[in-house]
């Protein structure tokens, strides 16, 4: 309410706005609020189903009509698709390894490459960039995993996401912009190269590393493109959570029988989805400022 008042407050020193401009301000606010509603309302409606008794689904608009924990109990009980918590644990393992592993490996590689007089720098950069321009496609990667005996195994999804050339370029550009004087003074104080990397370069580039970590985390937690390739629907112990949810969707939306479970299928789906987004929601507010810092660096390249 205060914002709207501020907007309409007249400032006598200012050039008077025309009627068209005032109308545009109103249209602007209305459009943005409308867009917010289109984004938020479906999510609120769907997630409130998780707490709702399935006989009253029709009455739900934003808040649950009649509280019931039935959906959560079904989710946590487990089914022939395996246990929800197994998938959850797998996803935690996947996310942690990918986030830490990928960013550490790429930051380490970016550090020597950020030096202007690194030996055969152009050649090494070329070696990495070629993989961005041309990839062999899904079939050869799938066959590589077959060869390594990693199909139906959560580690196939981990290993394929470790190499991330985009992050490497990001880190390299950022490290090049760090002030050289600090490194020089650290070298005078007797810091070794490894100490320099872990004690000085990493702490100084926390904003960009933070945002890259967040994106790796979101990608690993939400993505199931690699799981679709490497993990068959029968290997119930190897599901990442997103893949579990995908299979749950498919099973619940295509079965026609009148199971007791299918009565509350929307509620069960909603409950599973709600539990799955908790880690993302927890990180979201903390990371917004990191995203802003990191993005500004990415967008203003000089």
């Amino acid at each position, binding site marked *: 309410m205060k*914002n709207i008042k501020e907007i309409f407050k007249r400032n006598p020193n200012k050039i008077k706005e025309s009627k*068209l*401009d005032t109308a*545009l*301000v109103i249209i602007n606010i209305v459009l*943005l609020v409308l867009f*917010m509603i289109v*984004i*938020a309302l*479906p*999510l609120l409606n*769907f997630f409130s*189903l998780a707490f709702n008794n399935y006989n009253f*689904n*029709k009455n739900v608009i934003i808040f649950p009509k009649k509280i019931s924990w039935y959906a959560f109990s079904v989710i946590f009980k487990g089914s022939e698709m395996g246990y929800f918590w197994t998938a959850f644990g797998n996803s935690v393992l996947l996310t942690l390894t990918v986030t830490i592993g990928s960013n550490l*490996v790429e930051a380490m*590689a970016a*550090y*020597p490459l950020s030096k202007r*007089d*690194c*030996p055969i720098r152009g050649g090494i950069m070329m*070696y990495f960039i070629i*993989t961005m321009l041309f*990839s*062999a*496609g*899904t*079939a*050869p*990667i*799938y*066959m*590589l995993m*077959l*060869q390594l005996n990693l199909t139906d195994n959560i580690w196939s999804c981990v290993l394929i996401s*470790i*190499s991330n050339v985009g992050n*490497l370029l990001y880190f390299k550009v950022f490290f090049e912009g760090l002030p050289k004087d600090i490194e020089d003074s650290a070298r005078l104080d007797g810091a070794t*190269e*490894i100490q320099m990397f872990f004690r000085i370069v990493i702490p100084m580039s926390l904003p960009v590393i933070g945002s890259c970590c967040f994106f790796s985390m979101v990608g690993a937690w939400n993505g*199931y*493109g690699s799981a*679709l390739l490497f993990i068959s629907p029968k290997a119930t112990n190897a599901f990442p959570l*997103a893949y579990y*949810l*995908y299979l749950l*969707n*498919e099973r619940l*939306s295509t079965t026609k029988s009148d199971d007791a479970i299918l009565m509350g299928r*929307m509620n069960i789906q909603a409950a599973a*989805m709600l539990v*799955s*987004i908790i880690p993302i929601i927890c990180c*979201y507010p903390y990371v*917004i400022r990191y*995203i802003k810092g990191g*993005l*500004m660096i990415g*967008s203003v390249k000089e």
Partner: protein
Amino acid sequence: MENDVMQQETTDALETSALSGLDEIEKAESVLGVDRSLFEEPKFWSLQKKRFIKYRKVLWFIIPAALFTFIFSYIPMLGVLFAFKDSGHFKLFGRIGLWNVMADGYWTLENFGNIFNDKFFKAVGNTLLINIIKLVICFPLSIFIAVQLSELKSQTMAKVVLIVICIPNFLSWAVVIATWSGLLDGDGGALNNLLVTLKLNEPNHPLMQQQGLYKFFVIFLSAWKGSGWGCIMFYAGIIAIDKSFYESATLEGANRIHKMWYLTIPMIIPTIALMLVLNISGMLATGLEVVLPLFNMLTDIEESQLTLDVYLYDITIMQPDIPMAATLGVFNGLVGLTLMIVGNFITTKTLKRGLW
């Protein structure tokens, strides 16, 4: 004439003096015992060796990343050779490892003729249709939202709007699709109920399982999930514009539409060009994670609704025909690369900006 002679003389004099100066320097160097080789450009490899010694303690930092890139990006490129193997042999054995590429089957070029079949052309048509509509609708939508956001005077409101509209981007496709299939569910979906009361739909007629609406939902859900996040790059570009431009435009009597059209949009053209090239290079990919669940949801699956991603998934995993899949992968990669180069060429010609 005289001028020329004068010039000639002065240049000669200058040259001789410079030469004598050089001589004197050389004499001084020989007296002082200066090593001239220090001033010469070192040879390429000796330079690299010197640098290598300087950085010997940090150079091994590159090895893990190089190793992962080699194993998971370069070794699969061997699989490209599968495109030149006959597909009959591999159909029999199905799932085989990468090493067998050399040993099994015989070499042939017939795959490159065989992939251009009916199914393929339908898939390419569907994919291009979806992606072109996405480019025409979603891309300007993000720019529009970014411009609208920057027009807001209150920073707090802009922040709140930004936080809310970015949420769907951080949800899994599984969650997004479950949300909308829940809303449009045949019995009890809230949006479906609304449509039924408005007499736009019948009960027990879930819209997401209808054949004809498949492409619409792919586009709509992409817009719903991505356009909020897509505006972030443009928004960052807009808030970096110098505010004095807007002030002088106001003094000149420009209204909001003028400022939007003649100031904001031209200032973010570099960002637009960059995003446009990236979008165009992904023209043959629709994203398996969104297409496949929607495809599986259809009541009766028809081949006319295939997109390239689903087709590739089908011949890699469901009914393995590895040589065909490898050929299609090569085709996809080459087309993506070409589109990137062409897109870059077009944006450098028209918008004067590009990727490189």
